[in-house]
């Protein structure tokens, strides 16, 4: 449950997720809308069945890989569905309904056995890959094996299947282990059936098979790390042979063997899709606003200059969407360093949250002030506000001082704040926090560390944090799947604390939280699970182990000539599987 767009966030980033989700609103089923500011959050802008045309997508650097089994970028999980169909995917509609799972290659959601250990999927028959081979579940089994068990060849993607599938023989992956049977815990009794055997019950398994790692890969065509240059396509598009260049981009053309009935949720409107890499941020924004580019594929939104321009121009503003990204910007409060809960509560009350919002670019492009750990676009979110974050966003100094007195330190205390020094927005939020805490006589010094090792050796090392008296640090988090377990488990489970690369930076080890997480993993009923996520969120806020800053937003821009554009809450950016061109 590592942050999926780790590198995307390193760019000046704001998030995107659905504004409408807070109110539970959003027209379900994707009612047609016309171009208006943030209309893409709640409706399908320019709904149309028109076909033809070329889509031009750009991005400021390059994807980690086009190989569906070797990527961890949020936008790639969204984009790869055009040429690599997973078993399940997200309902292609705006609003909260977009978080529901629908079949892609499969015929329906997974069937789970009574003990919760066996998940069975059936795929449609008669589907064909771009090279003419019929699609079989053996190809899907092979894809899961190569994506999860061969990290030396395909290092980028997550290894959830390795984590949850039974694997008593310690399978070494298809490149090392040439035995015909492969991984014993995935069975393919016939060409349209695939059975996964788990080591322990995992109620969220359906979310795992939305990963591009379940898109079929024929073993005979697999070229390992080079597979990304011409992956065999199962979706409506395929990579145009010879068009891939790791520095300049790639072209997708129609996959002649695909039928709409194969993957009913994904559309084939445009004739061609060009994805151009390595355009500088401001240049890309100018091309977007000028109309020669259709979308920023990365999905992290406009840069500072273009944001100001767009928000001040009524014509351009109606082509923009301020979308929640599913990201939470927050400060973990290290319980090892600040061990008294009342002291931590004093920090919660004292912080001026409007300064955080300003640092990230304001209410429109930066995000909404957060009062919970789960963002509104994550299934399981429950609205509550323990520390007046939304009612008194500039902070409540009187309450903060009360808490300080309760904590036994009425004259304040001191600690250090760690930040990623090369991220000015985080440095600014740390300074804003420092400024707020000064008012209750809590003294802080800001220590800067490089982003590269921040999550492993600095903020991710409990010993380092303790040795340097670092009580808080800047951080951001998003789930790999938009559901409470995916979001919470790594940052709240006391058993997930590691000596390096630790994500539970609060060092929270609450038996009740640990137990609730186990219950959620085993609970077959979604309603029960969602209730548990809300409970965990509440406990974390009661313990004041996290100072939430913002539910991050991105200011996305859509070319007015695009059709069927809307924000999918699942990825916090436009749904790339539906877009066409007028």
């Amino acid at each position, binding site marked *: 449950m590592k942050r999926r767009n780790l590198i995307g966030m390193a760019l000046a980033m704001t998030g995107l997720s659905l504004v409408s989700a807070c109110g539970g609103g959003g027209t379900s089923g994707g009612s047609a809308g016309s171009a208006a500011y943030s209309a893409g959050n709640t409706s399908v802008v320019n709904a149309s069945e028109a076909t033809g045309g070329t889509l031009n997508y750009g991005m400021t650097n390059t994807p980690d890989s086009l190989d569906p089994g070797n990527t961890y970028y949020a936008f790639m999980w969204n984009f790869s569905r055009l040429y690599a169909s997973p078993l399940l995917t997200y309902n292609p509609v705006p609003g909260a309904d977009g978080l529901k799972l629908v079949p892609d290659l499969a015929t329906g959601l997974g069937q789970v056995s009574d003990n919760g250990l066996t998940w069975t999927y059936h795929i449609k028959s008669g589907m064909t890959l771009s090279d003419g081979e019929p699609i079989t579940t053996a190809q899907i089994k092979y894809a899961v094996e190569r994506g999860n068990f061969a990290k030396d060849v395909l290092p980028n993607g997550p290894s959830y299947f390795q984590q949850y599938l039974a694997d008593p023989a310690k399978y070494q992956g298809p490149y090392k282990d040439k035995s015909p049977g492969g991984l014993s815990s995935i069975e393919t009794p016939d060409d349209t059936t695939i059975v996964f055997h788990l080591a322990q019950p995992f109620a969220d398994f359906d979310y795992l098979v939305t990963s591009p790692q379940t898109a079929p890969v024929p073993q005979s065509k697999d070229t390992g790390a080079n597979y990304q240059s011409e992956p065999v396509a199962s979706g409506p598009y395929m990579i145009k042979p010879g068009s891939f260049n790791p520095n300049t981009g790639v072209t997708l053309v129609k996959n002649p063997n695909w039928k709409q009935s194969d993957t009913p949720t994904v559309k084939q409107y445009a004739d061609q899709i060009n994805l151009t890499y390595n355009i500088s941020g401001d240049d890309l924004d100018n091309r977007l606003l000028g109309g020669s580019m259709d979308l920023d594929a990365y999905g992290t939104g406009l840069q500072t*200059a273009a*944001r100001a321009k767009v928000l001040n121009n009524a014509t351009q503003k109606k082509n923009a969407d301020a979308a929640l990204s599913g990201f939470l910007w927050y400060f973990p409060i290290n319980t090892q360093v600040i061990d008294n809960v009342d002291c931590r509560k004093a920090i919660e009350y004292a912080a001026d949250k409007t300064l955080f919002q*300003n*640092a990230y670019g*304001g209410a429109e*492009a930066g995000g909404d002030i957060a009062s919970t750990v789960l963002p509104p676009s994550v299934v399981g979110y429950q609205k509550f506000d323990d520390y007046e974050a939304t009612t008194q966003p500039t902070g409540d100094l009187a309450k903060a001082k009360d808490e300080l007195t309760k904590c036994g330190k009425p004259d304040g205390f001191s600690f250090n704040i760690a930040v990623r*020094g090369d991220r000015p927005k985080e440095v*600014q939020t740390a300074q804003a926090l420092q400024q707020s805490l000064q008012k209750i006589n809590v003294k802080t010094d800001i220590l800067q560390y490089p982003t590269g090792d921040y999550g492993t050796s600095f903020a991710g090392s409990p010993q380092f944090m303790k040795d340097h008296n670092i009580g808080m640090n800047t951080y951001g988090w998003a789930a790999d799947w938009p559901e409470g377990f995916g979001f919470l488990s790594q940052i709240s489970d006391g058993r997930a604390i590691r000596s390096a690369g630790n994500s539970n930076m609060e060092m929270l080890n609450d038996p009740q939280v640990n137990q609730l997480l186990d219950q959620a993993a085993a609970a077959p009923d979604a309603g029960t699970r969602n209730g548990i996520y809300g409970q965990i969120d509440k406990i974390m806020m009661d313990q004041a182990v996290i100072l939430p800053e913002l539910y991050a937003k991105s200011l996305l821009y859509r070319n007015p000539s695009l059709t069927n554009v809307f924000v999918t809450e699942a990825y916090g950016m436009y749904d790339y599987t539906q877009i066409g061109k007028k």
Partner: protein
Amino acid sequence: MAAPLDMSSTEAQPESVVTGMGKAIEGRSLGQIAWLRLKRDRWAMAGAIVVVVLILGALASLVLDATGVLQPNTYHPDLIDATYGRPTGAFGGISWAHPLGVDPSNGRDLLARILVGSQFSLLIAAGSTLLSVVIGVALGLVAGFAGGWVDTLISWLMNVFLAFPLLLFAIALSGVVQQSAFGLSGNALHVAVLIFVIGFFNWPYIGRIVRGQTLSLREREFVEAARSLGARGGYILRRELLPNLFAPILVYTTLLIPTNILFEAALSFLGVGLHPPTPSWGGMLSDAVNNGSYSADPEYVLVPGIAIFITVMAFNLLGDGLRDALDPRAR
């Protein structure tokens, strides 16, 4: 350098004879001549005046900061438009209260930050220059004068230092020394570390110049004369060689200061300088660039950029003028 630069020398008489009408003819020292030449160089004088103004400004800001007139770290959220997180008004929200505008997102006064930042920029540049000059002159003199294996050793050391990846070392060191060390903490420690990093690794440049000059000077007649009169090494170094090296050292020092200002800015730009919220010019520049705020409002690069430009330019003009004045043939 035809003769020892002796302040009481009367060698300069021929020049002053021309202006002798109606006034008593007086001898001028080389120092006075150099000063006259410098005064005639308008660019150098302009540079000198700017340098003096900068130093006075930094000293004044020290007082103003301490008395609370300047508030470089005070937030003014009321000046920020919450919709965009940007100051209301053009050019960073310039107003009478904030003549250079305010920071994006938090509304800190840019003028106050530039002024307080000048203290640190100048202090670090001057301190590190002094350190380089002291080490460089001492080792350069010894190497040039002693020759032999001492010269070989010191020259080798200089080459090692010159080949050292200074920026990487600076980044590493600033990352390691974070909290308190050597009995220092906070800004005092960070300033000391920066002075050490910049100064300690720049001495070979001046060291080589001094060594070269010493090599040529030690064979001169006046050194021979001193030696034949029984002067020892230490005396010759201090009383015969060092005074003759005064001019190149002074010139080089003035030219080293702007280099070090830029170096400090570069380090702050990379985030290894002073800790926030302490303002520094390089840090302000880095914020503007990394934040992308410059592309929305060029104000944020222009203000620290122009401050660095003016300072570097002034020191360079002054240094060039000094070189011309002290050693006219070196043009």
